[in-house]
């Protein structure tokens, strides 16, 4: 590759990176979501809530999900912090231990980690939902 051509490619790459960075500059949370979770892939987990930690910097749902055999697997599912969830109608008492919920989530990028981030959540018994009207983890 000739030097001028290489320079053009690097310059173009720099310009593209600048543009690519702009859309993600608005929100910044406790950690980088895209680096933590594979946000381009979703998994669906239906299980029973065993804990709901409504807190900062992130809320967590602990979910017991049937493993397809005779047992369950516990998933730790990350949600938004308290201020964001409150503004979207989710309070400390919204989820109760024993609730059965269906969660669509982005899985962790690390193999062997039963951890995910909420994309949407539905509680069938009363129709509670989150994420279906554009809500996103903040």
């Amino acid at each position, binding site marked *: 590759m000739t*030097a*001028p051509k*290489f*320079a053009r*490619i*690097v*310059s*173009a*790459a*720099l310009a*593209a*990176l600048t543009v*690519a*960075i702009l859309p*993600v*500059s*608005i*929100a*910044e949370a*406790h*950690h*980088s*979501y*895209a*680096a*933590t979770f*594979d946000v*381009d892939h979703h998994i669906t987990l239906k299980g029973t809530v065993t*804990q709901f*930690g409504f*807190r*900062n*910097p*992130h809320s*967590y749902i*602990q979910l017991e999900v049937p493993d397809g055999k005779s047992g369950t*697997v*516990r*998933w*730790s599912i*990350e949600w938004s*912090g308290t201020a964001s969830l409150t503004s979207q109608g989710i309070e400390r008492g919204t989820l109760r231990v024993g609730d059965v919920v269906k969660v669509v989530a982005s899985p*962790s*990028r*690390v*193999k*062997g*980690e*039963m*951890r995910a981030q909420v994309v949407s959540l539905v509680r069938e018994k009363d129709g509670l939902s989150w994420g279906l009207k554009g809500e996103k983890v903040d």
Partner: protein
Amino acid sequence: MVHASFGAGIPRNPTRGFVRRALLCAFAIAFGVALAVPGWTQALVGRDRAPPDLMGEWTLHDDEDPGQPLLGQYLGMPFNVAGRMRADTSAESIWGTAEYRCRPHSAPHSWRGVGGARILKDLDPLTRDVTGYHFQYWRSLDRPVYLDNRPHPPGYAPHSWAGFGTAEWQGDTLVIKTTHFKDGFLQRGGPQTSDIYTMTEYLTRHDEYLTVTQIVDDPVYLDEPYVVSTTFEYEPNSAVQMESCVTTALGDGGGSPYFVPHFLPGENTALQEWLVKENWVPVEPTRGGAVTAYPEYQVSGKNAKPPISRSAVSVQKAIEEQSPRDGEVHVLPVQGNVYMLVADGTNITVSAGKSGALVVDTGSRNMSAKVLAAITRLQAQVTAAVRPNDCNGSECIGQPSWASPAMNAIIASPAPARPIRFIINTDASPDHVGGNEVLAKAGYFARKGGTNVENGAVATAAVIAHENVLTRMQNGPGGDALPLEALPSDTYSWKFNKISEYVNGEGVEIFYEPKAISDGDSIVQFRRSEVISTGNIFSTVTYPMIDVKAGGTIDGVIDGLNHILDITAAEYRSQGGTWIIPGRGRLSDAGDLASYRNMVVIIHDRIQKLKNEGKTLAQVLAANITLDFDVRYGLDKSWTPAQFTEAVYRTLPAAARGKKGAAQ
């Protein structure tokens, strides 16, 4: 061209000209003197010449904030090979673990984190001079920076998220130099820092704008300092909030709370994910390196030879200062009754007080005299220091009547401090038991009664250790020749042992950590002082010095580190609270220990994977898989990365499933 000047056209009076010149000279001299004497300067020129006031609420200019960098996009990041490997294998998921969830943003990132910045100042109440600034960000602890010329602490003092900062004015720019940081990150999602980086900041105010330029110098992971600048706008109607944080040991789903998220080398496939979409971007620039930060790179690529500025920080020196081997004993007060003594590179823990001294590990034999002298001085200082009299007459508390004891405090020698009563050996290594004989003989523990002479022999301090320590000392080289006072007098064999009485007002508990550095390791917890002395399971200057022949294993070390984490409590945001005295290195806390545990687990997992694949020890050594930690923990010639790798390899099972603590 005619120069116009005041008085032009008026006939000049030579005498008046001389007077004017003389007055100008006098004024110039006076002004020069005034500039040289700060007090005069302020008096003469007032606020106009004072540095700009930085105090107030500042909002971040979002248009400059790069926010979340793309995963694996390292363009311009001045990595060295270790830094790139550390970034590639770091998992952002670590922030979901109990030990990380409440950590603040790392210092290099704090200015860029959301929420703006608040700057407060300290004033000297006598002179109203500004003696310090405090910086606060949304997710941070208060960060003090001192302008009173105080020195930076020694290398064996603890590190914190905010570090230790001092500052001075250079013109209208405040220059801050900060050391003693904990490990952290440069950017989200990858680039990490070691715990020996330093940061120099330049804060310049231009009316309503504040420019902050940060220069992060971390030779462990960077080929040259990392430079970033950020602009803020003064906004008195804004307010930096404090973000609360709650954490519990949730564990990561089906895994263990001890699971350490990380990517094995080559496992992080997400690094070039974005390049799939942007497939016209060449990979090479995105891998970073100092050269990619320079314009020359645009022309010549990796063949460019820009004038790279190497680090001003010596890694070797910084690490040596954490554990000085200078033949001296340095004393660092820790918390409650407890002091850390750094004796020629080995840490000794001392509880000093009216019960007498309790000493954890005794240092090497050749340091015994100096260690004993230091403990004796410390005991005298704590329990028998001569103080000015503060009591007269029968009102004196604790005195039965008109007081001669108060007089005696001034006119007579104070009572001697109580001697060493207990010694605890955390293992049988020479630098932990070498001083036993001298210290035990100088001490006193009444086994039979209240006299220090029993059966014609002088009673010595009690020496406590796990029974395997005594076995190894007796059966080791020269064991037969060891005098009785050099050996543990009181051994235990259960998983813990409590000192049978309070020592200096608190319970002291010893825990056995099986198959860790050896088969006889103990840690010691001071329950009221909130201090743990770890012995060699934890070191801030070396990899764990696993003695395989003495029964040590990598899994035992990790179990021991996890146990210590279990019984620590951070004061706030994974910092302070329970203080941890390592076998070697600087005073630490749970945040430091978690980072060290993570490093050990990461290396464990890498070597286990290779062993699972049937790789020989030679192949594992050739893979150089400790590269990203070697500059930080592998410089000690007595315990090299190869020795550590071999110890890990030999004590791991032939095959194991997944990473340690991962869901199966």
